[in-house]
């Protein structure tokens, strides 16, 4: 019964997301795109940081790489956009292998700051290459329209949720969670730590890498501040934490709730947007440290337990 309800909710949400472009246009379609983008970014971050426990402040580097690669391939090489965006994602994923090999030796705050530094270095490098137009940015031919980009992003979001659902119940996912709890013990029990976390890292790079291309097409103009947006990076972390780090449905709930709040804030108080957003993150960590989804799950479990006790003869 409960399971059927869950499946029905998921199917309804999916149908709604698929049908959205048929009825929406202008601002609302933009909002739908930003929502789906946020969902997918939050899921990308959740794999390496939520499941494997390696908090990263630099996944936006892969988003930026995907965005710039796609922009260059479309504008200069005249590739079809979907192939260019795919290539951007694969490039980000390929670069994540040597980067991950180096960075994943760091732990805890060192990894978090190391990734932050890595993202800044990638940004400086990308913008110092003449082909990217340096700080001035790149224009894309504006002939795409938002609907294909929306579906591209929706497909990646669905894929990211699928991968996470698989992670949550597979042996590989268990290995990652063992790493998160205690890497030494996990290694003693026979988990190939390096391999497991590098796979997670590559997945967490592929998702933003694929999304970056779509974002470049959405903006039709990219520059460093947009491609390596601190705001998107912060948002995806806040969303995953709000919903519940390391859970299957946490990032979805967090991103759906947060995008609406964030858009409303951005529209009404652009001046103090960052202040309110940062303040909310702080308040959330204190009030709801585990996130919405685990808090609800806990309550449901407790009620079920009480019901069972009362029903007992």
């Amino acid at each position, binding site marked *: 019964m409960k399971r059927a309800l869950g499946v029905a909710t998921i199917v309804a949400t999916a149908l709604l997301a698929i049908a959205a472009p048929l009825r929406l246009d202008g601002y609302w379609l933009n909002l739908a795109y930003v929502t789906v983008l946020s969902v997918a970014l939050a899921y990308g971050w959740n794999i390496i940081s939520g499941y494997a426990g390696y908090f990263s402040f630099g996944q936006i580097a892969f988003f930026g790489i995907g965005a710039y690669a796609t922009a260059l391939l479309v504008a200069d090489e005249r590739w079809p956009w979907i192939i260019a965006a795919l290539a951007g994602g694969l490039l980000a994923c390929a670069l994540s292998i040597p980067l991950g090999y180096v960075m994943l030796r760091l732990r805890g705050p060192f990894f978090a700051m190391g990734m932050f530094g890595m993202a800044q270095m990638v940004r400086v490098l990308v913008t110092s290459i003449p082909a990217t137009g340096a700080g001035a940015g790149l224009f894309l031919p504006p002939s795409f329209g938002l609907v294909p980009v929306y579906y591209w992003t929706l497909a990646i979001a669905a894929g990211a949720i699928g991968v996470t659902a698989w992670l949550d119940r597979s042996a590989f996912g268990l290995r990652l969670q063992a790493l998160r709890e205690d890497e030494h013990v996990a290694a003693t029990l026979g988990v190939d730590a390096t391999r497991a976390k590098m796979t997670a890292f590559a997945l967490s790079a592929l998702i933003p890498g694929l999304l970056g291309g779509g974002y470049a097409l959405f903006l039709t103009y990219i520059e460093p501040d947009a491609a390596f947006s601190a705001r998107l990076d912060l948002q995806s972390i806040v969303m995953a934490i709000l919903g519940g780090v390391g859970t299957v449905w946490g990032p979805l709930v967090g991103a759906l709730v947060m995008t609406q709040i964030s858009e409303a804030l951005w529209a009404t108080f652009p001046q103090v947007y960052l202040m309110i957003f940062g303040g909310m*993150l702080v308040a959330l960590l204190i009030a709801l440290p585990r996130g919405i989804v685990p808090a609800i799950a806990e309550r449901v479990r407790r009620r079920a337990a009480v019901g069972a006790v009362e029903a007992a003869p």
Partner: protein
Amino acid sequence: MILAQLAINGVLLGGVLALSALGFNIVFGVMRVVNLAHGDFVVLSAVFAVFAFEQFGINPLLVLPVTIVAGFVAGALVHRLLLRRLPGEIASAEASSLTLTFGLSYFLAGAGLATFGGRFASVPYLTGAYQLGGLQFPQARVLAFVVAVLLSLAFALVLRSTRIGRAIRATSQNLDGALACGVDVDRVRTAGFAIGTAVATAAGTLMSFLYNLNVQQGVLFTVNAFAVVVIGGLGNYTGAVLGALILGLCESFASYFAGATLAEAAPYVLFILVLLVAPNGILGRRTA
């Protein structure tokens, strides 16, 4: 000659970087928290000094006591009201304190932006230079260096010879041992965070006449402090001073030979390299 000049610039810069890093270090020592809002305290203090100078013509050295007290109070409040309330029992306690200071950093930068605006500014104070044997000693940098060294010595004195200083060092070295000896760790942490923030705001006021700053550059100073402390070894104060000199020299040489944009990447390159080659810092002991 140019090399000697670059070295002088680097060392003078290193003095202020060292002061800022000492504040970052003490917070890590007592709480094992990497304070990502550190740089925002530095920058807010600098912007406040600029504001005081432009509006009321107050000399930044007179602003210094005010920012030190304000930093002390702000640090104590952040610990009492925020960090202490994080639930300690969840597995990702370290991650949640990191994320909390990350959010705080955006909060402070946003609050600063709303209050002071996003303009780049500095205090035009002591713009001349002393000449010595053909070398330039910019007055502002010399002054900032001297004040930073004096404040660092005062900081060392507090840690070395006062009761709270000893308690802070005991807590940093061995939490369980400190608890067993009856140290009120909760109070020590508040004191550590307060002192660390006061040191950060002091460094910020000195930077108001060294750098052209705006409120959103806190990240830069967090990264600088982090790099300095990583180079010297987290929790190691002598190492931090040495690390600051190394970073100061690197930034000075990099901006001359490679340009300002690439010099911005210097602290990142340095700390990633040190983390990979010598994770305990250049003075760090190897641990099992």
